[in-house]
Every structure is written in structure tokens, then in C-alpha cells.
């Protein structure tokens, strides 16, 4: 499916950044919506937070934090690429960003269970 001119790590890094950004845009309104219950219907917020104890929801949460982490570290990578002197180790940087994302979201997951 991935066309031949795209089959290299830095293009995947771009794709990951875009997909994570897009997913965050979709999730964020939901997040805001739920938090706003605190004002209007505090009991529903609590209900929602309790609901987060379920494993599936835990996994989803992990996914979300992972996306956020991916996007942040990916974004850091891009900002460094754009604003710091050029580094020839672009692939390493991209890999590090992914690794850092796993680390952070993994920690979150372990704490949460």
C-alpha cells in the first residue's frame, strides 16, 4: 500500500506525526467535553473516571498517551531539525523520538494498572 517512493524511515516518521496529530485533534474535544462535566454534572465525571478502570479503557488510555507522546517527541524532533543546526543523524533522532514515546507511555501504563 505504501508506495515505493515513501518506503523509508523518515517518511514513516512523518506519517506517524500526522496520524498522531490528527488523532489528538479528534480526541481533544472529547477530553474537554468530559472535563466540563465537573462544572455541570460532577457525578458523571466521577462515573467516567471510574469507568477508566476497565482494562480496555486502560489500553485506550495508553494509546492516547502514546499518541500524545509520539506527537510531542516527534514535534520536538521537527523543531530541532528546523531550528537547531543540522544533524546528520535524522534516522537516529526519529527512532529516539519513538523510543521516548514508548518509555513515557509505558511508564504511564505501568503506573495506571
Amino acid at each position, binding site marked *: 500500500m505504501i508506495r515505493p517512493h515513501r518506503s523509508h524511515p523518515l517518511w514513516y516518521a512523518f506519517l506517524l506525526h500526522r496520524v498522531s496529530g490528527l488523532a489528538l485533534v479528534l480526541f*481533544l474535544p472529547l477530553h474537554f467535553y468530559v472535563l466540563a462535566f465537573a*462544572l455541570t454534572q*460532577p457525578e458523571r465525571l466521577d462515573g467516567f*473516571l471510574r469507568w477508566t478502570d476497565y482494562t480496555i479503557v486502560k489500553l485506550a488510555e495508553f494509546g492516547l498517551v502514546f499518541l500524545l507522546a509520539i506527537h510531542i517527541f516527534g514535534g520536538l524532533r521537527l523543531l530541532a531539525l528546523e531550528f537547531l543546526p543540522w544533524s546528520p543523524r535524522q534516522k537516529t533522532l526519529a527512532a529516539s523520538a519513538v523510543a521516548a514515546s514508548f518509555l513515557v507511555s509505558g511508564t504511564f501504563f505501568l503506573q495506571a494498572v
Partner: protein
Amino acid sequence: MLDLRLYMAQRISALIMIPLTLGHIAMMIYAVQGGLSAGEILARTQGSLAWMLFYGSFVAAVSVHAAIGLRVILFESFKIKETILNALSWTVFLGLLYMGARAVYAVTAL
């Protein structure tokens, strides 16, 4: 479709969010230990001007950042015309800002 001004807005908002989101994640990692409850969260945040500023600036930044980000994706994937694109971007921006502001107000006002 980015020109210099949109680019700057997106990059500056990203820079602002870096400490905020990292702080938020660290917070969450700390807070989720043993499960979340509304009471816990609200106890920490309600009535705190610091938290209001913290999350308030995140909401402002992310509204700008995400609206521009979405604009680019919409343009590149769907070749949407500029006028419609502008309208969409503003809608996303204002929508996020409104929802975000409400959420911040909910968790940080007394």
C-alpha cells in the same frame, strides 16, 4: 497550505505546549497511581490560579496549533478551496477554544 504567519503561529504554539504537555503527562503519571477520581482532581485544581493559567495557556495554544494542523491536512488531502479552508480553520479554532475554556473553568474555578 502555510505561509510564514501561520507557520510561526503553529511553531510558537508548539513551543509553548512543550513544557505544558510534558508537565501534564508527568502529572498524570503521578496522579493515576491507584486510580483517578473526580474528587482528587478537583481538590488539586479548583480555585488554583496557577492551574488555571497552566491549562488556560495550553487551551489557547492547542486551539491555534490544532486548527492550523488540521487546516494543512484538509488542504493537502482534500484540496479544499481557500475561503472554505479559512472558515473551517476558524471554526476549529473557536470550537476548541470554547470547549477548552469551559473545561478549564470547570476544573479550576471555585
